[in-house]
């Protein structure tokens, strides 16, 4: 009983997160300017991280946690590099 509650609510949470990813993807494809696309990409990274965490709870394995940490690190570096590119026109000067 309690197992069923947890697994169904995890499934519902994953569906909601997938819908959130679709919304961020819409903004990234549609976004009128470059900074909108970068913002949507950052949101997409965060939602993918959360989706991996819920998958880890669902399968009760620790591997997804490592992946989530990797996504968090790479997302931060990528967004900072893109923002710097918007500001200066080049990443490393």
């Amino acid at each position, binding site marked *: *009983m*309690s197992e069923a509650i947890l697994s169904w609510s995890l499934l519902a949470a994953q569906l909601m997160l997938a819908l*959130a990813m679709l919304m961020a993807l819409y903004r990234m494809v549609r976004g009128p300017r470059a900074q909108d696309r970068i913002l949507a990409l950052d949101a997409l990274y*965060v939602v993918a991280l959360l989706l991996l*965490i819920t998958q880890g709870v669902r399968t009760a394995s620790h591997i997804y946690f490592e992946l989530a940490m990797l996504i968090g*690190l790479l997302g931060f570096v990528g967004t900072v590099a893109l923002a710097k590119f918007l500001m200066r026109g080049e990443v490393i000067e």
Partner: protein
Amino acid sequence: MADLPLWFSVLLSACVLLGAALTLAGCFGLIRLDSFYLRMHAPTMGTSMGGGLILLTSALFFSFTEGRVVLPEIAIFAFMSITTPITLMLLARATLFRDRLQQQLDAKEDASLGSDSNPPAVPPAADR
């Protein structure tokens, strides 16, 4: 999955559902709001409260099933709550810079177009 007591699984379900709903609301704001400066505030709901609740669910679940305190989720949460303001501030500064540059270019173009009839109202590049 280990056998959890009923109250514990209800608590975990409430946490994960609320976190996912907040993240969904943040991404909905991303497509609903009008200007970039408004949109910039929307996804922070997902990174602060939504991410916090989902990571709390994971920490509680693994602490219970493994019988010891599992805390690496706190590291992800701390990292996320430190890095999100940094990235958004950099992005906002870049956007302000681009907008200002565009305004200056427009003003210069107007001045050069109407230079023979009337003097330019705005002196070009007066600030910065």
